[in-house]
């Protein structure tokens, strides 16, 4: 294509084109030079000296999931509090230790590590640098004075998602699948399953959940967080089995699930999507026409809060546990699909939320943070 276009050009024409584009390029260089102004710094000096750092897991900071939310949290801390920021993406597990070592040698006051995969490396780094602070997302295994775990009782919000999913299902089947069978994934599925069960008990219905058996802790898994097509494949299977609300708990594979649903709806089906981690309406707007709701973990806010605490000299190692009560986890608004949820269901959801907060409904998952 390019080659044939080039061939049809006469040599002279080609030279002319090049000359023209070169001129265009040069014209872009005609702007005014800015005045040589000194750095204006109205920030408080403590914040300007505070170095907040973040190390991703292999998902990278553009995963539209927990790496991204945490990163955005630190970014807004940079903006709001005036701290300095350093970032490192890891592509393999072998990158964790060197990345953390480099952060330590750069003198990071607080290093946020994203994901349980970094637990080992974070523990080691925290031990080697007792004067520096660490915060780890989604892991509660490190016991050290300078490590703050940030964990989420996601099952609470997923319970509400399960309830609303069961209420809008027309086929009487809802589905879910995970990336890998690990606690941070299955906690969503456990909550979702219990929400569906609760709906069945309360409303006397028999909505079935495909893709997860809470008793045996087995279900449908793509066995990857990276190959998006696996999400499409798994979702197609669930749709073929009759599910019309699907919650993928697999990071970027959610996009694969969204694509599968968009394709299925073109053929006359009416399938809806439940996003996880962030509000998909904002982070994955491609799917807003099929997006029922999202199970949100507000990692950005948690990260920013921890930075602020540390900046104020109030850092402690008590785990931050995100719940419905403190707003760490939440059910996103229904946005464009608001009409598909009945007013009754909405009031019931409010009651459910209250009951979970006051403990009269117990959402239990083997993966819940203790």
């Amino acid at each position: 294509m390019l080659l044939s276009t080039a061939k049809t050009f006469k040599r002279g024409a080609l030279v002319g084109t090049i000359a023209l584009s070169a001129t265009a390029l040069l014209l872009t260089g005609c702007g005014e030079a800015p005045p040589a102004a000194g750095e204006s710094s109205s920030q408080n000096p403590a914040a300007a000296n505070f170095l907040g750092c973040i190390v991703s897991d292999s998902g990278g900071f553009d995963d539209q999931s927990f790496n991204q939310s945490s990163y955005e949290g630190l970014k807004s801390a940079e903006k709001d509090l005036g701290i300095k920021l350093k970032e490192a993406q890891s592509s393999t597990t072998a990158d964790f230790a060197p990345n953390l070592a480099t952060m330590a040698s750069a003198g990071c006051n607080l290093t946020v590590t994203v994901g349980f995969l970094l637990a080992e490396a974070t523990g080691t780094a925290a031990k080697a640098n007792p004067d520096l602070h660490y915060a780890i997302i989604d892991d509660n295994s490190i016991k050290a004075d300078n490590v703050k775990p940030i964990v989420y009782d996601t099952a609470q919000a997923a319970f509400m998602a399960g309830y609303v999913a069961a209420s809008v299902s027309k086929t009487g089947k809802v589905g879910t699948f995970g990336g890998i069978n690990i606690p941070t994934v299955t906690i969503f599925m456990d909550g979702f399953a219990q929400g569906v069960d609760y709906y069945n008990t309360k409303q006397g219905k028999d909505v079935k959940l495909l893709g997860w058996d809470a008793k045996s802790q087995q279900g449908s898994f793509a066995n990857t967080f990276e190959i998006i097509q696996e999400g499409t494949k798994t979702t197609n299977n669930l749709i073929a089995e009759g599910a019309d609300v699907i919650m993928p708990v697999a990071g970027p594979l959610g996009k694969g699930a969204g694509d599968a649903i968009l394709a299925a709806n073109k053929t006359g089906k009416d399938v809806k999507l439940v996003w996880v981690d962030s509000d998909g309406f904002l982070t994955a707007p491609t799917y807003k026409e099929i997006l029922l709701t999202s199970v949100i973990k507000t990692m950005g806010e948690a990260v920013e809060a921890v930075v602020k605490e540390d900046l104020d000299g109030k850092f402690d190692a008590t785990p931050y546990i995100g719940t419905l009560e403190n707003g760490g986890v939440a059910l996103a608004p229904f946005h464009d699909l608001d009409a598909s949820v009945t007013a009754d269901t909405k009031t019931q959801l409010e009651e459910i939320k209250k009951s979970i907060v006051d403990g009269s409904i117990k959402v239990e998952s083997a993966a819940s943070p203790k």
Partner: protein
Amino acid sequence: MSGTDKNVPAEQTPGTPGAPGNPGAPSIPGATGTPGATGAAGKPTAPSAQGNADKPGKPEKESSASQVVREIMSGSAMISVLAVVVALVIGGILIAITDTRVTTAFGYFFGDPMATLKAIWASISEAYGALWRGATYDPGARTWQGRLGIFETLTFATPLILSGLSVTLAFRVGLFNIGAKGQIILGATFAGVVGFMIELPPGIHLLAVMVAGAIGGALWGGIAGFLKAKTGAHEVIVTIMLNYIAVSLVLYLLKNQLRDPSSSNPISPRMHETAMFPLLLGPNYRLHAGLIVAILAVIVVSWLLNRSTLGFEYRAIGANPRAARTAGMLVSRGYITVMLISGALAGLAGVTQLAGTEKILDADIAGSIGFDAITVALLGRSKPWGTFFAAILFGAFKAGGTSMAINANVSIDIVAVVQSLIVLFIAAPPLIRSIFRIKEARSEGVSA
């Protein structure tokens, strides 16, 4: 014997850049096959980076020093160095044009041309400065580990040396071993089983771990060698496929037999302390005794290739398998044994990863080492010591790349781009020659 003969693909002229074989006239000095005879022909000091210098057609009087200079100037070593230089220059251009300071300054280029140049200089010097300091010595770092990045460079280089040797050795027999990744994984898995499942006294335990790792790698490499020798199955295809099988196999084992019972993730328990390589410089640095193993391996492979009967056979097969067969060598045996040794070396690379730095086996234990090994071997011109220095350069890229990403805020992908460009330029020597107007070496192809 005759059965294996017809199975070996007829076209075995090695296309590997490192072993520019000259078929037709095998440069086999003295058909006696005694390596000692070649050593007498004015061989430079011990195992030189330029490998063996036996050139039967050359006058014997040439001093070893001038020989080395001539090889560097005319031959492959110079191309390697220039490839790195050109790749770094292009990397620098990429760093500059992706830097917002440069693009902003370019917006008023005619208002203040110096600003653009200053921004370009600042951008490139900061990035490469951080790369250099991260890889060698950084006086401004807060921790000792960060200050002496050279040890981090050597730590990264250790598995690359071993896996690079694995690829190098196979190259010399005319085999393109793409399977270092799978062999590393199998080596690490075998080593892991011994390392975290069995308790042994110190010393013996580490030795057992290394032996197990070498066996694991040799097994995986041996499959490819065996299939090549017996059925003619192309080693590139077989080793690539074995990589996938290795990843899935280790993941399966990590989910079942090898899983850490206290973890729900597919990772193994920690290695016992007795199974770990001792740290060479105390707890502040990750540098471990695996480096010594790697250096010993370079010496052994260098000896094997240049001084031993087996190595002579390997080089002969690599230069021209048909001629080697006519000369009475067992080509199929050569393929199998070289892949066993090659696999064992890659397996040892897996051991240095697991028992040196990682401590815990996961499915990603090989990382990008398996493929970096191919680049390292190419850059090292398929010479053992060349591979050694190439591995250290890549170790420096890794150690410095982290520092560059964090301290200069340049994407670590730039390092990957530079590495890939190096491969590109090495694979296309005429490109480098035309850039630098180097005359084609007359002796090209003579050095084995």
